Each structure stands twice: as structure tokens, then as C-alpha cells.
């Protein structure tokens, strides 16, 4: 398949990438744009480590062919807290929400998405809202605390 130019707005900056349209958005971010904060855990949309916001919606970037993201606004972990720590990042630090850190960028994107939908989430909404992001270290309890603390801090 021939390459073509795909245009995206990533973390507020217009980007033009010469790539196969079937390339995974994850690879374009990590390899073409050197935004390696987005992680690959499974490559099949199960673990959520590659979560990014696409036009404000949470997606697994390993499942998105970049051709489908033509013209889209993408927000990755590098776009969060560009002017100092975002409240969600601060809460993940203080509550112990990050251990090995490999799920953390995706988990933070999922939390930002969750808090946009439910600014004061109940515990059950947090459990359901983060169920697409796997963490093997924490048993999720510290992550729940981090989400609750970030919610209290407000946007």
C-alpha cells in the first residue's frame, strides 16, 4: 500500500505524517512523532496502555488506523500538564496511583476522560470507567483514591 500524508493536530500542534494509512495511530505517535509516553501493552485493545483522546474521546491508539484519524485532534500524555502538573497527575503521585508506571499514561488519559464525563464520580463509576485500563501492580485501590482526589481538586 502506498504511503500518503496524514494530517493531525497532536497536543495542539498541526502534524503532517508520511505514512501508510493503515499504520496504527500508536506507531505514528511513538515512531514518527517520537511521543513515546503512549505505551503498548497488548496490541489488541485489551490493556488500555495506549489510550489517547481522539477528538475528546478515549480510544486505544493500537486499534486506530491513522487514516481514520485524518484531521483529528489527538491528546496524548505529553499534552497533559504542559504548564505544570495537571491535578490528575498530582493526585497519582500523592496517592500512590503509579507503581511501575507503564499503565500510568493511559490510566491518566482514561481518568481525564472519566472526570470530563463525571466531575464527581461515585466509586462504581470510577470502577466502570477505568475497566478498560489494566494495571497489574496496584490492585487499583490507589488509583481510585487518585481519581477521587483529582475530582476534589476540580478541573
Amino acid at each position, binding site marked *: 500500500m502506498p504511503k500518503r500524508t496524514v494530517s493531525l493536530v497532536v497536543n495542539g500542534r498541526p502534524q503532517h505524517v508520511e505514512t501508510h494509512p493503515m499504520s496504527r495511530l500508536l506507531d505514528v505517535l*511513538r515512531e514518527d512523532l517520537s*511521543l*513515546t*509516553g*503512549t*505505551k*503498548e*501493552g*497488548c*496490541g*489488541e485493545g*485489551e*490493556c488500555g*496502555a495506549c489510550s489517547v483522546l481522539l477528538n475528546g474521546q478515549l480510544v486505544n491508539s493500537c486499534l486506530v488506523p491513522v487514516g481514520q484519524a485524518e484531521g483529528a485532534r489527538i491528546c*496524548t*500524555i*505529553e499534552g*497533559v*500538564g504542559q504548564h505544570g*502538573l495537571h491535578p490528575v*497527575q498530582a493526585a*497519582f*503521585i*500523592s*496517592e*500512590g496511583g*503509579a*507503581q*511501575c*508506571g*507503564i*499503565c*500510568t*499514561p493511559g490510566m*491518566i488519559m482514561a481518568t481525564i476522560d472519566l472526570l470530563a464525563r463525571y466531575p464527581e464520580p461515585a466509586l462504581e463509576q*470510577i*470502577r*466502570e470507567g*477505568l*475497566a*478498560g*485500563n*489494566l*494495571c*497489574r*501492580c*496496584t*490492585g*487499583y*485501590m*490507589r*488509583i*481510585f483514591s487518585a481519581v477521587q482526589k483529582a475530582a476534589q481538586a476540580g478541573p
Partner: protein
Amino acid sequence: MEYRLVGTAVPRKEAGRKVSGTAEYVDDVRLPEMLHGVTVRSTIPRGHIRKISFDGAIPWHEFVIVDARDIPGKNVVSLIYDDQPYLAAERVNHPQEPILLLAHADKHLLERARQNVHIEYEPLPAVFHLEEALAAETVIWGEDNVFKRYTIEKGEVDAMWSEAAFIVEGEYSTGAQEQLYIEPNGMIATFGAEGVTIRGSMQCPFYVQKALMALFGLPAEKVRVIQQETGGAFGGKEEYPSMLAGHAALLALKSGKPVKMVYDREEDMAATTKRHPSKTRHRTAVTSDGRLLAMEVEFSIDGGAYATLSGVVLSRGTIHSCGPYRCDNVRVRSVAVATNAPPHGAFRGFGAPQSLFALERHMDKIARTVGLEPDEFRARNLLRTGDSTATGQVIKDPIDLVRLQSRALDSIGYHEKRRRFPVENARSRRKKGIGFATFFHGAGFTGSGERFLQSVVTLEARAANRVRVLTSMTEMGQGTNTVLAQIAGEALGLCYEQVEVTNPDTAEVPNSGPTVASRTAMVVGKLVENAAREMKAKLPSHDFAALGPLRVTVQYKEPPGIFWDDALYRGEAYGAFSYATYAAEVTVDTLTGEVEVNDFVALQEVGRVLHPVLATGQIEGGVAQGIGMALYEKVVWRDGVMVNNQMTNYVMPTSADIPNIRVYFEEIPYEHGAMGAKGIGELPMDGPVPAVLNAIENAIGIDFDHAPVLPEDVLAKLAKRRVA
């Protein structure tokens, strides 16, 4: 004793880079001219390699291809026995065994090439189960398929059967479990005049160094191993990284370029190590008033095709198999055997979760047979100060396990629920149950292991009153960087921010032993504490800079009064045990077979808690992995192949599956641990599986003696009971 830093929740040292996505994991590293590497693996369990052909429209001349003939040194992954090759030359002994390595700059082309290597085999008969391996009709390893045996003998077991009021027998088994760190295994190798340099995801940089020295015939100073940020390990990056680092280095040597090898999830699950499947038989003599007279245990584990760490895993499982109970007459016989599956290996708990699962299910069975409540039966037999374990280790801690157990059970409302649930269950298809397990976990290397390790740590005073801690202990999420900085800062009278913990790099740090066995905080932390006290004594003022650069190095010395007999398996097996009671409340849906854990209490005595948030996080994470092992995580095998090697069909718990985990600590400072700390990393893996299965039995009155218990297992047993 009052502490400034220890016991406080200082921010994790590397938290800033983890929450911002700037922490550098191996797959984030890109070097100039770097190639990618892949592995061509065996597709059969056992046989001779007859022919290798390179087919298809692949520009093979562009590829770097490595086979066993390219190995300059020894073709063995140097660990304990020299039985596992880096690359199979003539014979394969398990599916997924590495045979060839390929490197190319284009990852997509590389994958196509891998699929176009065709290997013809002459198959040999293979062995897939513990019993088959023990029967040794087909011998696939050594003379009898046995990697290792142990026997523990205490008292006069044979004399007790005739005196017993009850003899209770049981058989229990566990399946394999995948570590499922979210970052798969990965390594980058470069080769140059200075030797080989490895960067990667790992627990034990000096294991990798030792293995590569043998593989290339190089001295230590020519093999440099640097840990990248490591995205979880849980034992899964203890021994396997030596294999992967060797492969990347072989490709780097032949190509003259840096080579990156990062497994995808399917390859990582299919080819790398898992928790050993196990089988345990118990035969127990009990008095009429519920006291243990004699315990006879047979514990066996399936090690897969090569010995790797199986003997050591077996050792820990064997020593833990009689738990924290007082019994004067004990016989434990254990065996690790070979099968034609990829080698099983280290996974958090290291044999103890398997044998303690069997024991804590069996204790419920004995209680039922004797007619005592499970907590009352255990209370009559729990170790007290001055009692001795199965290996004859005398418990010196002022520990009150009966009180610990009661406190945990009170926290979850155990007795009230034992009365209430049967009444409520009679009216509902959703049956509630409550169960628990009481257990211990020994911290540090077993027996004389710490003495042989001779761990070293260094502290370095630098300008501006800053101190660097140099150890080989890796950070893999558990909090190494943070607690070692707390310990050093505490002992030196410095702020947390003034202490820097150096990233493990064999060219820079001393060998403090591997990051395994719940030993980092307790054993290596104590060395850091000792080094810091020595440094402080040399520097009466805090003005380190004024006195010039200063390095203090200390080495492990065995605490006095420790005796271990490797031949008889008797003596002080561990420097210290941590103790716990875990209790689980479950609901079993008798229509769907689903089991939900509704509440979980984890109470433990772990010596001094160095960092309350990190320690709580360790326990919660271990409990979640334990709930996974109890209810979700089933490796499905077909002829030695894991066939569900995807996260889609090997299911770990999500945030929606985990109950509120309530963590409580009791702290009895341990004098030989850092600031009084004992090990906690592995402890939480031991309790959840028996606690959950005991709760299921309480809910529906059906014994499950195999973990995991999946909904189909519940439905099958319920159907069988209806027929009966």
C-alpha cells in the same frame, strides 16, 4: 524510636517522570542505525531439527541471521544447571524454544521473514503432565525427569498414625499463572571495542551480566548491563532477561549494529516463564481435641523443559508447606520435574503460594472433620513464640498469631456472617460465603543463600550535602528508589530530596544481589542503613562537601545465631517471617457460576512499615494478583503450548472485578531489617487463593481443590451435586 522520614509517605522518587510519560522504558529507546530482532521458535514439543529452509520472496541477503554456530562462548543460559541453550542446535525440548534469530531495520518485513523460515523436525515422544514425568516411562531430562528433590523430617511421623483420633487426607493443585507485567520483555544490545552493552527491562542486572560473560567468553568489565525503567516484573523478569539479552547481543555482534528485541504480548505469554503448576498431597494426624500430631506432605511442581530456577522455587514451596503451625512430627517430600513445556519460573511468592494454598484449604478440611470452627482449629495450632517451624526454626518474634487472626476476622465480621449467610442463602440463588487463610512468608534468600550472595552497597557523599546510594536493586514499581532514599536520609540526618538513588548499571553499582525474594527493603535496606551510619560517624558535621568526596562500602554479614543445614534441610530457613490473616467475602451466583469477591481484609505483621502508601500498594497489588489466580487466570495448554496467549482470553482482574481491599498492618520491628522492616513483596500473593476458595466452600458447600475456579467449574460441580 521516632523517625523523620521512615514511616512517612514521601513522594515516589521517579513518580514525576512516570505520570508525565517521560520515564524511559526499553521500547522508548532508539539508537542510531538500530536494527530490530526477532526469534524463530520451535513449533513442536520435542524432537530433532532436520532441515531449515528460508522460503518466499524475502530478500534474505538483507537479514542478519544467527544460529547456534554463531555463539562465541558457551551455548547455555548460565544460572544453576547448564542445561538450557540460548539457541537449539540439533534438538528442541519445548514448543517456542529459540532456534534462530533474525535482524532487520524494517519491523514489518522482519515479521514476514520470520513466517517464511521453515523448519522440519523428527518428533520424539514428549511429556506434558506431572504424573507422566514422575512415572518416567519417557525420560526427557537427566535419568528420571527429576530436577530436584527435598525431604524435611522432624520428629516421628510414622509413630503417630496409630495415636490419631482423625487422619485427614487431601489433594490440591494449582495451574500455571502468567506474570502479565504490562510492559513485555525487551532488550537492546550494542557491541563495540568496549564489549557488549545491554539496556533493558529486568530485575537482576548481575544475572544478565553473568550469563553474557559465559555466552561470549568475556570478562565482567566487557559486559555492561543497564536497567531501563521497568514496567512490572513480579518474577517474570528475574531469569528470562538473560535469555533475551543474549539473543539481542548475538545479533548485535554479528550485525555490528545496535539491536532491539521487544516481544509482543502473544510471544511474551507463549514463550516466557510462568508460575509452576503444582500438586500437593496432605495426610494429617489430629488429636480428638484438634491438635496437629503429624503432618505428611508431598509437594510437586512442573518445571517445564529446563531446570532454570525450579529447584529454588521448590525449596521455598517445601519450607512453607506446613505454614505457621506447631507440629512436632513432620515429613515433607517434594520434587520438581521436567515436562516439554517452556520452562516455568519465578513469580511472586516463588512456590509458597502453591503449597500454602494446599495447606490452608486442608486446614479448613481438617477443621470440618474434627468438628471445630476453622478459626478455632487454627488457633489451637498456630505457632507461638518459642515454637519451631517444620525445619526446626525457633520463632523468636514476640508474635501473637491468635490475636492477629481474631483481629482480621473481627474486621470483616466473620462470626456474624458465618451465622447470617446460611439463613440468607436459603432464599437466594446468589449465595454468600466467607473464608480466610492464616500464613507466613519468609523474607530474603533461603537458608545460607544470603551468606553466599555477600551483597555489597556503596554510599557516596557529594557536593552540596547530597548523597548517592549505589546498589543493584532495581525499581520495577515496588518502590526501591523511594525506600532506600528514606533509609539513607533517615540514618544520615538528611532530607529525602538530598538522597539520590543511582540507576542500576553494572559499570557503576556494586552487586547487592538480585531484586527478588522480598529482600530489597529488609536485607539490602539494612546494608544501606549500616553504610549511612558509618558515613555519619566519619562526618560529624553535615558539611559533606568540606570533607571532600567520600565513599562508604559495606558488605552483608550474617546475623549471629543463624544455622542452616543444606543437606538435612534443617535450621533457620529465613532471617524473618512476615505473618498474615487474609479474609474474603464472596457471592457465588448458582445460575451463572460467577464468583464475585465483595470484601477483602488483609492484615499483616511486617516489621516496621517504611512507607505507608507504598506498603499498602504492595499488599493491594498482591491481593489482586491472588484474586486473579483464584478466579480468573487460567493458562490453557495443548501439547506444551499456551493456546490462550492473549489478554483477550487469559483474563486478569480489571478495576470492576476487585473488591474494596482493606489493608491493616501490625509492626513489630525486626532488629536485622532496615529500621526494623521485614519483607512484604511476596507475602500478599500467598493468602488470597485459599481465602477465596474457603469462602466459596462456605457459600455453596462444595470443595474446590484446584485453582483457578472459573464459572464453568462452579456450574460443573453444582450439576454433579444435583445428579448425586
